[in-house]
């Protein structure tokens, strides 16, 4: 019984190359030393070095990190509270669906809604409104992740804590939260990367003086794809991938403890 040539493997590989072509293009061209990004001149880190001297890019990068950190903090706090609250309610099916639904609302619709809301209550647009907007957006993802984890938790473990004489706060901090750690880490990393990369909502809810990195990239691209853009795209990509891989690893380690 000789082995067949694995046709499905070949098809899969070809399709994967097709899927990855655009991403590989960005990464590949970011190492092009030419100043015309479409003409390959040689491999080098020239444009990576140039980026550090570009003041608007660096300050927008700092703003983006700041927004992402604050967003992560609030999303995690609010999302975890909702998840634990929803889990306590027995008939929470309807509320459960609703608390994760903002994750499937089109970005554009959420952006319009936020802009209208801020206009109605006359809140001026700046990094504060971006943080509020990103928190609304990221909380739904945190809830989805934490609720899924709570669902996998043995409910007897919290009951055991009560049975052994612990009050609700001791049970929460000594038993429930340590159990949820992998989900909290995953939720934090996801919130951070979503906020970092987010363009549409930031564009609608930010003021013109404090652009975030995706907004800067967007304004640069109107003049065509430049080598800086490939470098910035590669950096954003790297941060996302490192985040996701980190979240998976930490999740596994936390699980095995």
């Amino acid at each position, binding site marked *: 019984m000789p082995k067949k040539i694995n046709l499905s493997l070949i098809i899969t590989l070809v399709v994967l190359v097709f899927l990855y072509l655009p991403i590989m293009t960005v990464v590949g061209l970011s190492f092009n030393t030419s100043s015309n990004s479409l003409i390959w001149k040689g491999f080098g880190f020239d444009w990576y070095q140039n980026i550090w001297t570009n003041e608007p890019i660096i300050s927008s990068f700092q703003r983006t990190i700041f927004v992402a950190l604050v967003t992560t903090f609030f999303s995690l706090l609010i999302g975890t509270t909702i998840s634990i609250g929803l889990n306590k309610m027995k008939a929470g099916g309807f509320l459960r669906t609703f608390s994760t639904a903002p994750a499937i609302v089109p970005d554009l619709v959420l952006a319009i809604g936020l802009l209208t809301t801020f206009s109605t209550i006359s809140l001026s647009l700046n990094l504060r409104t971006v943080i509020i907007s990103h928190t609304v957006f990221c909380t739904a993802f945190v809830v989805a992740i934490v609720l899924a984890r709570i669902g996998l938790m043995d409910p*007897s473990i919290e*009951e055991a804590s*009560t049975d*052994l*004489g612990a009050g609700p706060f*001791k049970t929460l901090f000594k038993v429930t939260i340590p159990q949820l750690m992998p989900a909290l880490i995953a939720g934090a990393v996801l919130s951070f990367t979503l906020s970092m990369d987010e363009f549409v909502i930031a564009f609608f809810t930010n003021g013109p003086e404090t652009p975030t990195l995706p907004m800067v990239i967007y304004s640069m691209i109107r003049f065509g794809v430049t080598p800086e853009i490939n470098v910035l795209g590669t950096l954003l990509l790297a941060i996302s991938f490192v985040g996701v891989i980190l979240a998976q690893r930490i999740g596994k380690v936390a699980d*095995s403890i």
Partner: protein
Amino acid sequence: MSEDLLKVRNLTKKFGTITALNNVSLEIKNNEMFALLGPSGCGKTTLLRIIAGFEYPDSGQVLINDSDLLSIPTRTRPVNLMFQSYALFPHMDIFSNISYGLTNTSFTKEEINNQTNEIIEKIGLGEHVKKKPNQLSGGQQQRVALARAIARKPKILLLDEPLSALDKKIRQEMQVELKRIQHEFGITFIIVTHDQDEAISLANRIAVFDKGEIKQISTPQELYENPTNEFVANFIGEGNILKATSTNFGFEHPCLGKVNISHSMGAGKSVTILIRPESIILSPATTGAGQITDAVFAGAKKNITIKLTTNEIVRVYADKSANLEVGSHVNLSFNPQDVRVF
């Protein structure tokens, strides 16, 4: 003060339209090994959770040493539960798991350490104190769950399906161990199980539940030998349940003839009879009451399956040397004392 540690009186609990417990009453004595036995959904777990404090009944009373148990908050009830899943805290080591209940008391750190170490010693977990629960085998995890549950020295230890997750060899070991620990610590055990073998091998007395009601409370031997209804007869041990007609002196069955027993239920009624497989003696016949459809070697005996001419199936334990082949016809005889009629 009566000799009963726990009294359950007229307990009723409904979940929506489902009646989990219907007017259940029972008494459990001090130092008893008491089992709540029944198929899943029979209400036994609901009773356990009411005693533990995780559910509250719709009506009825639970008394411990003649004082109300239900008004005591879950946290401070003199009752602890060993969960079916063990519910160990996976992020804490074995020592922290076992001492957890003691940290919720007014004991000093030194007292907690001493008491925890004493229990670890007695349950034989000394070499594992620094490990996490998932580094232990199933049997060891159960010992930790047991140690954690008795650390607060409860008056009653509730055990939810304590042997179900263990394989056969460790089951037998834990069975002896649970009895030893119950004896050594002097705690009353209430065991919830769906497995008659588990109940019989552990408990002094068993309450058999069905559909939220108690069908019979008695010792294992009494439940086996003198079940008071068909449900218990069917649930405890292997038994042949046949349909017969009552006579003035006993009953009549098409394949077994007229049988006289000590009491009568009045003539002409449709009755159910129970005969245990070891109570039947088979004798070969050219055209008998039934035909052997299966004969299986089972160590010291043979398990014989017979199809009666009434199409009823009867199981018989025969001697392994008995010459009983599949397909041969047999007659059945038994001592009328060994038959129960409902």
